[in-house]
């Protein structure tokens, strides 16, 4: 177990420090949010109605950015060989990597999400709900995205390929995540949506590492 803890701490440090860490994803998030009013017009009524959804869409896109680095570097420099011969199975390695990705990338994005939504015109009362849904959903996004990252190992054009593989998989969390905020904002019962979102994230947490490990073994073979 201690080996896994060491790996987790290292991954956290790597994700935090690697290529500017979450700053790049955060900036991208902010950029998408800036372009939105320019594209649809700045009228508060129009922006306000799409703000929660747009924040969630931008969140999904931003969480794609750092996925390419999740396995690719380790695969190229031989670290993945070393990880495969360590005290923990690759499934556990994938779990540690996914959790680190969530904490170092998903959590900062979840902190920024309410700011973006409010800047786009969402009410202040939505702030806690946006943060919670982004944080829970981010877990699902990290683990689903990790599958795409592991599958595209050893391929040409990794980045675009990951996006093409992963974005259709992101449909449920985007629907449920934006649904939570939508329901909350319009005074409906938001708990089913949050329940679905949590269920999706937990399923991704449980099944994602299996697929990631299988994909890594395939890439190493």
């Amino acid at each position, binding site marked *: 177990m201690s080996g896994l803890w060491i790996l987790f701490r290292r991954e956290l440090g790597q994700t935090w420090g690697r290529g500017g860490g979450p700053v790049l994803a955060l900036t991208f998030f902010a950029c998408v949010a800036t372009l939105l009013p320019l594209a649809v017009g700045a009228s508060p009524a129009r922006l306000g109605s799409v703000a929660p959804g747009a924040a969630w869409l931008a969140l999904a896109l931003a969480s794609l950015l750092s996925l390419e680095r999740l396995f690719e570097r380790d695969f190229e420099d031989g670290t993945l060989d070393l*990880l495969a011969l360590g005290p923990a*199975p690759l499934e556990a390695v994938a779990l540690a990597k996914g959790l680190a990705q969530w904490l170092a990338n998903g959590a900062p994005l979840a902190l920024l999400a309410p700011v973006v939504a409010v800047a786009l015109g969402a009410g202040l009362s939505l702030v806690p709900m946006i943060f919670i849904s982004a944080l829970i959903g981010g877990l699902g996004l990290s683990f689903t995205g990790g599958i795409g990252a592991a599958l595209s190992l050893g391929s040409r054009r990794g980045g675009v390929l990951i996006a093409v593989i992963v974005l259709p998989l992101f449909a449920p969390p985007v629907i449920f995540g934006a649904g939570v905020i939508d329901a909350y904002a319009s005074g409906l019962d938001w708990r089913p949506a949050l329940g679905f979102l949590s269920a999706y994230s937990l399923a991704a947490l449980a099944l994602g590492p299996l697929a990631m490990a299988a994909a890594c073994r395939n890439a190493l073979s």
Partner: protein
Amino acid sequence: MITGLHLENLAIRRGERLLFAGLCLDLGASEALALTGANGAGKTSLLRAIAGLIAPHEGCVRFAGAKGDLEPEDARSSGIHLLGHQDGLKSAGTAWDELLFQVRWTGGSEASARAACRLLDLERLLGLEVRKLSAGQRRRLALARLVASPRALWLLDEPMAPLDSERRHLFGHLMGEHLAAGGMIIAAVHDPLPIPVRRLDLVFS
């Protein structure tokens, strides 16, 4: 701890190509094996198959322990060092951080990492970032993990290539100590190893 390696009727395919078939080999404690053969004969693939990264096309790899056969997963997760051309050292990290992670991940301790650095004369380099090391220094850093975390079977792919003659001599001495302690070594090499070894020449099938 692994005390013996048995390859039974091993065949390995890469894509459509059958690299070799019917390979049988027994390696016991304190034995070293030098793998030779032309480029593409399958030296690296054989090492990776023993490490479990490649599934053999036919046959199997067995690990013997003190009390009968070991589970291959257990043997591999605690008994094998694989050092290939890629050493897994991140070029942005400092030499010490990178080595310490590798040593702890493979079951060694901070103290053993320090001792290995003394042995391999790495102490002055430890504060540097890995990308600033020369090829020889970097290889010494990678070799330090073999010494620092005790694992019985070393699978080495061209371990000596970037080392100068003095360091080769030093590494030969370290390999000798590993064997004396009951370890095993399989090394894919072009140049002869500075220790007594058996030889296995892989030829194209």
